């Protein structure tokens, strides 16, 4: 047993007490701090989502009045986007796994890492505060256009400030990861020997670093307009309101890739482990992450097709949007090719990842419909957009998050979850998810506008199906959370390497010691996913 030979206590045992957690400099603990804060927000926002679906079970008013409904969907969107999906995978699993995957003892700047978490907490406080203080910002949807357009430059200030603080947390995490990846790789690990999750974190970190300052500049411009009366966005003093939308989306579109890229990294990590096979097209996957990050900067205009854009500009943004599909498709083909003729071991993490591919494909294809100028004008602001968005974000990013949670659960806690229960939770989640969101795509094509608490009777049946799906999904979610919680407390002890993985985190004990490795991890020969070699080191 490894335990007997362990000279160090694991990172849970190293220190005790609440202060040892909230002021910790250990990347693993910071990752878990993010996990618990994000998890709490997720439960709240998911609850709000269920309430919305319940209201939409029947046409007319059932549960809440229209104003409350508007506030509920705004809160749902703001929490899910800014407090959950943007930080989720990089902040939780990036923090926990990156140094382990690189074979090092921590990130490059541990104090900065702690500061990032604190900024996240303060930013969350601000973001939720803007919904409570003042008036008018609680019912605007997550893009916050309204306070700007209705009362130019008023309530948007604290909101942009919140996005800025949260963004700063994101910038610092990005900076930390970039430096860590460049400087702290274990000896012998070149860029092309890094695990693909690290590559995706690297691409994401550059987006975080380059895109987030734009929201900061926007904030400064708003302040300049309000304080000095310089006409920047307000048309009554010679400004251009469209500029605000441009700046908002120049940040917020790349932010979509902050959400999607790490999820793709998780997929690239889990598939070779459970296929016990070298990943197909390592470089293609690695470089396509960078390509997505790069092209992602130039497509923001597709959010503004209907808000006054010239024909040629619309055409160019539309074409550029289609370009994003190419590196994405490269990844999907490579994942599928990796599974081909692999020794597939079907476990919960793999199931979540396969669900990711299925859902993400639907999300991607419906995205192409929205990206094409001619089709978009017919379905914009309908439930089609809601369906698409949830397929990409929930079916994609969040499913990958769940996959990662089940993949690294034994590593984090040294316990194994109850697999049969986890399978049941997965099936309910997957079925519930599709039953909830697929009808939305059809409703959208039929013209049902989004954001209403009410709808016309012809949409009733599909709305009922969708609400029914949300119940299935929630039961899956509850079973999953309870299962993980119970397993954390009372689960069977997990071996150090339950999945026969060969990336470096599986070479240390579970949970890892404070400094991650008791002895220098050994790089697998022939690349990070060269499985036949791996078996020899396993024994």
């Amino acid at each position, binding site marked *: 047993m490894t335990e007997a030979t362990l000279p160090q206590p694991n990172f849970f045992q190293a220190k005790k007490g609440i202060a040892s957690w909230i002021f910790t400099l250990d990347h693993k603990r910071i990752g878990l701090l993010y996990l618990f804060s994000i998890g709490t927000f997720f439960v709240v926002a998911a609850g709000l989502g269920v309430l919305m679906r319940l209201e939409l079970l029947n046409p007319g008013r059932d549960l809440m009045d229209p104003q409350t409904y508007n506030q509920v969907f705004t809160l749902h969107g703001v929490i899910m986007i800014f407090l959950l999906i943007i930080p989720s995978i990089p902040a939780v699993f990036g923090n926990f796994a990156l140094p382990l995957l690189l074979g090092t003892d921590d990130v490059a700047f541990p104090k900065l890492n702690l500061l990032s978490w604190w900024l996240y907490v*303060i930013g969350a406080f601000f973001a939720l505060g*803007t919904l409570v203080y003042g008036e008018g910002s609680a019912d605007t949807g997550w893009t916050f256009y309204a306070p700007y357009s*209705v009362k130019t430059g008023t309530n948007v200030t604290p909101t942009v400030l919140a996005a800025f603080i949260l963004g700063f947390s994101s910038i610092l995490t990005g900076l930390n990861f970039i430096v860590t990846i*460049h400087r702290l790789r274990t000896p012998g690990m070149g860029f092309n020997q890094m695990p693909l999750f690290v590559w995706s974190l690297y691409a994401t970190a550059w987006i975080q670093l380059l895109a987030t300052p734009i929201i900061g500049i926007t904030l400064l411009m708003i302040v300049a307009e309000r304080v000095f009366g310089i006409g920047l966005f307000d048309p009554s003093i*010679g400004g251009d309101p469209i500029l605000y939308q441009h700046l908002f989306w120049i940040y917020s579109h790349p932010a979509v890739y902050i959400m999607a890229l790490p999820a793709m990294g998780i997929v690239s990590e889990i598939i070779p482990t459970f296929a016990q096979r070298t990943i197909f097209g390592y470089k293609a996957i690695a470089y396509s992450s960078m390509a997505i990050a790069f092209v992602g900067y130039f497509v923001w205009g597709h959010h503004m097709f209907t808000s006054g854009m010239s024909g040629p500009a619309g055409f160019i943004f539309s074409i550029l949007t289609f370009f994003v599909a190419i590196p994405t498709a490269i990844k999907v083909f490579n994942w599928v090719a990796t599974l081909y003729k692999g020794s597939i071991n079907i476990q919960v993490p793999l199931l979540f990842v396969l669900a990711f591919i299925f859902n993400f494909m639907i999300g991607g294809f419906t995205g192409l419909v929205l990206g094409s100028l001619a089709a978009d004008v017919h379905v914009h602001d309908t439930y089609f957009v809601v369906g698409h968005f949830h397929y990409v974000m929930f079916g994609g990013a969040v499913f990958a998050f769940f996959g990662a949670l089940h993949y690294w659960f034994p590593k984090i806690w040294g316990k194994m979850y109850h697999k049969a229960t986890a399978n049941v939770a997965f099936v309910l989640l997957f079925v519930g998810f599709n039953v909830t969101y697929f009808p939305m795509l059809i409703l959208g094509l039929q013209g049902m506008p989004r954001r209403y608490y009410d709808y016309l009777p012809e949409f009733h049946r599909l709305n009922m199906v969708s609400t029914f799906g949300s119940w299935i999904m929630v039961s899956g979610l509850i079973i999953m959370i309870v299962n993980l919680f119970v397993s954390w407390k009372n689960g069977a002890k997990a071996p150090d390497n339950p999945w026969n993985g060969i990336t470096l985190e599986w070479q240390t004990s579970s949970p890892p010691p404070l400094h991650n490795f008791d002895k220098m991890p050994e790089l697998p020969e022939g690349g990070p996913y060269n499985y036949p070699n791996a078996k020899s080191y396993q024994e």
Partner: protein
Amino acid sequence: MKHLAILALTFILIHFALPAFSEEVKPENQLGIYEKLDQYISDDLVFTDELYNQVNLKKSIDKPTILVLVYYECPGICSPLLNGLADAMDKSDIELGKDYQVYTISFSHTEKPPLARQKKKTYTKLVKHGDTQNAWKFFTGDSITIAQLFDDVGYKVKKEGKEYIHPGAIMVLSPEGKVTRYLYGSAYFLPFDIKMAVVEAAEGRSGPTINKVLNYCFSYDPEGQKYVFNVTKISGSLILLLAGSLLFTMVMKGRKRKNKISKA
């Protein structure tokens, strides 16, 4: 302990700082829409239709009415707005004249019925079904009546030279003349948005605005406002420069040589 004290102080500061950020800007200086949901339009609004008939707005409203405030010589979003509305009306399965009517009112008091007639001809052609002749009216009026109507529905525009800066939106009134819905947009309306709004108005139910992405019709002078682009250009270059130098340093310095993990 020290950490916790700093933390508590930060949160207290934020608590007091937030309301300050949320303070209101006085609305009278601002153009835009100040929603007056559930309020009735005045009884004495008399406008002239395209055939020189004097029409009392409130008395003539006997069914859900879509109110469109534009000016006919607008070089900006008014035409796309009317086109978009006509397109949505055409696609919708509710019947113009039977289920609802449309009042287009010019807020430029210098515009007269012949111009209104001309506009009516252009736009009614786009709607293939319904009684476009009697149920889509194009009004003009004097400045006092226009100002009164603006007050009633919370609409603010600003004159600049010969043109107006104004918001792009349509309003829906119930058969009693009550404002029940604002639909924001400048060129694209969903047929179902229109239908929902009309159905609600028929029942006298109002709904808070869903999609508050308000568009403005405005002229922008890129030559006179160069500093805006300078701000974005300079800050953009700065960010790229910083990121570039970070990458350069990282690549040049390479991997950290010292590794703390002992080779046990």
